[in-house]
C-alpha cells in the first residue's frame, strides 16, 4: 500500500466493503430500494466514516497505545461512532433542515453499520498513517455508496419485473448481490 491512490481503489473497488468484505450488509438490503434514499444513506456513511476514522485513529495512537490499553479499542471505537453520529445528527438538524429530512432516519442506523466500525479496525490493523486513514475511509465510503446506488437502481427495475414468487424481494436481491460481486472481482486486475 505505498500510494494513496491505490489505497483508495483497494478500499472502494477491489475490496469493496459490501461485496468483498461483507460489511454494511443490513443497510445494503434494507435501504437500497430507492435510488434517492440509497444515495442519501451513502453520503451520510461517507461523512461518518471520515470523521470516526480520524478520531478513532487519533485516540488509538495518542491514548490507547501509549497506555498499553489497546484491548479497549472495540469499546472506544464504537463509543466514538455512537457519539459522532449523535453529534452529526444534531448538527444537521440545526443547520440544514432539508438535509436532515432526507437523511433523517438513516443516521442512527449508521451506528450499527459494521462497515463504519470495520474501517476503523482496518485502519489500525494495517498501520495506516493519518493520510492513509483518511483516504481509506473515503474509499470505503465511496465504495459502499457506489454499490448501494447500483443495487437500488437494479431493485427499482426488479420491482416491476416478473420475479418468481419465492424469490421476490430479498432472495433475488441476494442473487443480484452475487452477480455484482462477481463483476467487482474484475477490479482485482487494477492494482
Amino acid at each position, binding site marked *: 500500500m505505498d500510494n494513496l491512490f491505490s489505497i483508495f481503489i483497494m478500499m472502494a473497488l477491489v475490496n469493496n466493503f459490501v461485496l468483498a468484505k*461483507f460489511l454494511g450488509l*443490513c443497510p445494503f438490503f434494507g435501504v437500497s430500494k430507492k435510488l434517492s434514499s440509497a444515495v442519501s444513506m451513502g453520503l451520510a456513511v461517507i461523512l461518518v466514516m471520515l470523521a470516526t476514522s480520524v478520531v478513532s485513529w487519533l485516540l488509538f495512537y495518542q491514548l490507547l497505545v501509549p497506555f498499553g490499553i489497546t484491548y479497549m479499542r472495540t469499546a472506544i471505537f*464504537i463509543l466514538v461512532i*455512537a457519539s459522532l453520529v449523535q453529534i452529526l445528527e444534531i448538527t444537521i438538524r440545526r443547520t440544514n433542515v432539508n438535509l436532515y429530512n432526507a437523511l433523517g432516519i438513516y443516521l442512527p442506523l449508521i451506528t450499527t453499520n459494521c462497515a463504519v*466500525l470495520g474501517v476503523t*479496525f482496518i485502519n489500525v490493523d494495517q498501520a495506516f498513517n493519518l493520510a492513509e486513514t483518511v483516504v481509506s475511509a473515503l474509499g470505503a465510503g465511496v465504495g459502499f455508496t457506489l454499490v448501494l446506488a447500483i443495487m437500488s437502481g437494479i431493485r427499482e427495475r426488479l420491482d416491476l419485473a416478473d420475479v418468481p414468487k419465492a424469490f421476490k424481494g430479498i*432472495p433475488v436481491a441476494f442473487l443480484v448481490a452475487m452477480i455484482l460481486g462477481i463483476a467487482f472481482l474484475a477490479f482485482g486486475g487494477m492494482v
Partner: protein
Amino acid sequence: MVHILKNLKKGIINENPVFILLLGLCPTLAVSTSIDNAFGMTAAVMFVLISANIIVSLIRGVTPDRVRIPVFIVIIAALVTIVDLTMKAFIPELSKSLGIFIPLIVVNCIILGRAEAFASKNTLADSVADAIGMGIGFGVAITIISFFRQLLGTGEITIFGTPVFSAPGLFDNPMSIFILPMGAFLVLGCLLATLRYTGVIKSG
C-alpha cells in the same frame, strides 16, 4: 413456564434472526466458510447475547431511558472485548479465522436489537430464554449456510479440523464460487427462496 418455552422456540423458527428478521447478516455471510467457523462464531455470539440479555434485564428497572442505548452499547462492547481476549488467549486459531468479525459482534444487530426490544422490557427468565432461542436460531442458520458453502466449495466437511465427509466428485473439482464471498449471497438467496417456497416462511 409455557411462555419461556415460547420465547425459546420463536428465536429458532418464527423469528429466526437470520432468515426472518434479516439481522446479523454480516458475520453470517462472512464467516460461513466452514462448519468450525460457524460453531465458533455461534458460541461467541451466544455468550454475548445471553450475558447482555441477563445484564440488561437485571438493570432494566434502574436504567434511565435517556442513556439506555449508550449503556447497552458499553455493556455489549465490554462483553465482546472479553470474548475477544479470551479467544485470543485460549483458541488463537479460531480467533484468527474469525478475524475482525469477533469485535464486530458489538454492532451485530441481533444483540443490540434483542437488548433494546426485549431484554429491557422483560423478566430475567424470559430474556434468557429469548437469548438462547435467538442464539440457537443464529447458529442453525449459519451452520446450514456453512454446510453448503464448505461442501460445494471445497468438496469436504471438516469438524474441528478433521475431515468428516468427502463428496467424491466435488473434492477434486470443487465449485470455488461457493467459498468466495459471492457464494454466500447465492446460498442465502436460494435458501431464503426455498424456505418461502416450501411455506416455512411467508413471502413478500
